[in-house]
């Protein structure tokens, strides 16, 4: 069996859920593993750099990740990504409420052995 055969690449959304919140021009987005065993691959792959790259069009000045291993969760804090936030942004979604779903689009490689813990697995 090759490495590719033993790994599944899925949208992060299959392995975790989250919610976005706003304070001024700063967004925070939680990423919560569906199962404790999924937490390790998520922490290893969904890094500050990966998230900053994924949100590059919104020009984050800083992306900080806080780990909560007891909750199998992470909290991303993205500075200056809301075009000024609810008072200044021209976006229909000036709070950036939908941004959790942008983050959850990121790809995640998961060992096949963890597949039973994934949600709504896309058909291969």
């Amino acid at each position, binding site marked *: 069996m090759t490495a590719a055969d033993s790994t599944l690449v899925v949208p992060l*959304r*299959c392995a975790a*859920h*989250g*919610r976005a*919140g*706003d*304070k*001024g021009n*700063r967004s*925070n987005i*939680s990423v*919560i593993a*569906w199962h404790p065993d999924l937490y390790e691959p998520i922490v290893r792959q969904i890094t500050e750099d990966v998230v900053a790259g994924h949100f590059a*069009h*919104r*020009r984050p000045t800083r992306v900080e990740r*806080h780990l*909560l291993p*007891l*909750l199998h*969760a992470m*909290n991303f*804090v993205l500075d200056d990504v809301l*075009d000024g936030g*609810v*008072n*200044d*942004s*021209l*976006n*229909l*979604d000036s709070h950036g409420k*939908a*941004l959790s779903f*942008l983050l959850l689009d990121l790809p995640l490689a998961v060992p096949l052995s963890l597949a039973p813990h994934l*949600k*709504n697995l896309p058909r291969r």
Partner: protein
Amino acid sequence: VTTTTSTRSLHVGAAAGFSGDRTDAARSVVDTLLCRDGARVLIFETLAERTLALAQLARRHDPAAGFEPLLEEMLAPVLRDCLDHGIRIVGNFGAANPHGAAKRIQEVARALGGRAPRIAVVVGDDVSGDDRRGEVIGRLGPAADGLKLVSANAYLGAAAIAAALRDGADIVVTGRVADPSLTVGPAMAHYGWHEDEWDRLAGATMAGHLLECGAQVCGGYYADPGFKDVPALARVGYPIAEIDAGGGCVVGKANGTGGCVDEHTVKEQLLYELHDPAAYLTPDVVADISQATVAHAGPDRVRLHGVRGHPRPPTLKVNVFHEHGWLAEGEISYAGHGAEARARLAAEVLRERLAGCGPLRLDLVGVASIFGDDAGRWLARQAEGDARDVRLRAAMNHADLAVAQRLAREVTALYTCGPAGGGGVRTNLRARLGTLSCLLPREMVQARVEFFE
């Protein structure tokens, strides 16, 4: 009310998570509280950041206004039961006019009959008066130069709410307090906690954080079909937290309602609008959930445990709102063959017609409209497709009302001057509010309790 430390548990139900929340939410929460032993409190959180500034503007137009517009609709269905059965009510629905809210509550209670409630009003959050305005502006620095201020309010903590309850208030009306303080106040009063019992205050703070958005911890704002299925979402319940003497809590929801409370709904709400999970700053305490756990505690019941607390900050946060020009928006729809191409052409027309008016945002609803940035980098990256149902949206901020009005007129003119088949024009023009914040030393802000007679 007792001033001795109580060992009976405290049940805090939340019936609103924002101004404009469902007015039929309180009924099932109160019905459930009526079945519980112990002390019972119903809270209403109706004051988002901007809500208070809007309330201030409303009060400028009408001195009797400035509190939660839906106050009567929210309270009337449950007020009698709460008064008759000793369920205390705490709400920040006083907004910019807590005394006005208290007066309205008194009128509602009188109309319903029965005994008159003891209503306490917490004041002191408004720091826009002549005595402290200069200090606030000074602390805002050059950013405040030349701004027309609308409001300046400090975030008060739980102590005044606790004092009002200890003094026998049936109902506590506040303006700006930190949202979790609506829960911490009743817990301090009930258990006789001191202002430096940091772990306990932090536990109650996070219980309050779980409650403060209403249904959001019970499956509201959570459902994602196939990934996160929520039963009976249309009847989603509102939460009730049982807070113990150590500040730990079990969160559940009103009986006979839809939605769900499980470890995942609780984790999502626990992290909502948090930055550093080890330092959640409130006027009462710095709460730390880095060692906290959540665990299933029965059907639709989850226990939050292990929240720690650190000494509260020496300062209070002050939010200042100011007039901030105009937001102009306009939309028009295209459907059928070539819809996307026609919407894109209409966007080009607007771009040319409004050149020189300042930054213009253009969205193609149905193609790309939400994830994108105001500068249009995201939209420019999307390859042109053949979407058959597209709504063009244009938006602009401008200090000058006349320029903002031009956007609305240009979108409307797309009827006769733009691409073929455009329909459903809507335009919207509204005044914007800007915000700044600063910190004030606690000594400069005195929270006071006044009983409304």
